[in-house]
């Protein structure tokens, strides 16, 4: 403690570098915009690997499952993705934010 980080071992960017150094496929997800109430601010990040192991967060847990699936797809095809979630979204029946906000999440492979 005292270095300004909650726990260095849980920091998404530190983990991304370490996981990649260990030979794992890695993707980063970043909140790039929010509207209305949303649980995590712009810039919040999540790291995921090929197996779906993840750390960090881009919401209060509402959309992480979908983001991790897209992260796995980005690791597989190398293409970045811009995802949008919100109650007004057509996916709302599947994945949505209970708070009624909207977020855009950018997913990119670390390569």
């Amino acid at each position, binding site marked *: *403690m005292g270095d300004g980080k909650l726990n260095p071992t849980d920091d998404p960017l530190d983990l991304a570098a370490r996981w990649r150094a260990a030979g794992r496929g890695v993707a980063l997800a970043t909140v790039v915009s929010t509207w209305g109430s949303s649980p995590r601010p712009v810039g919040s990040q999540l790291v995921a690997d090929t197996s779906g192991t993840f750390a960090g967060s881009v919401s209060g847990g509402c959309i992480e499952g979908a983001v991790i699936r897209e992260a796995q797809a980005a690791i597989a095809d190398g293409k970045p993705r*811009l995802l949008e979630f919100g109650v007004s979204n057509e996916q709302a029946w599947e994945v949505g934010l209970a708070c009624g906000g909207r977020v855009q999440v950018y997913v990119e492979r670390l390569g």
Partner: protein
Amino acid sequence: MKAAILERLLALRAATRACALETILATGAQTLFVADDAALPAHIAAALAADRSALAADGRVFVHVFSPPLRLIVVGAVHIAQPLVAMASLAAFAVTLVDPRRAFAEGDHRFAVTVSTDWPDEALEALAPDARTAVVTLTHDPKLDDPALVVALRSRAFYIGALGSRRTHAARLARLADLGFGETDFARIHGPVGLDIGALSPSEIAVSILAQIIAARRAEPPA
């Protein structure tokens, strides 16, 4: 993100240097800018100055600002300092504890933060509080608190708090007035320190202080 960019980003962060990563979302192309670079593009300089990550109006470019952690300087390794430095660390502050009384600073309770046993004015001058620094004095002892407050008041610290009752605080302000400080300076000092939540225990007082620091940082300035 290219691995080389991530490595550079982590190195800059470890060196507590502010930087901004610009991403063209459609292609994933990225450029990393360091705050002290000469000739930064205006929108990058503005994002860094505002400490604000944002998507451009056209929705195509994201600028992610990585700022060093906010700093908290706590003067006085007293009982309240124990929960305060622990909670502030959890809230991602880089905490330095200052107390020249080694029995407090290096006693049985080991503080898991940077500790300085220099005299508070020397310690604070070396730490050079800036607009991303909060300073809290907890000793109740004018010999220790006042020199720290003097340095804090001459700095751009975004928050200054001083533990002590209203009576203690009034006496403190009278001493600072003798040193040439005035109402504008006094208005910067939160004293008695902390939000009024009826806090009693050291942990509760630490919550009230940390909450007040966060409010000073995040609350919208009055219109």
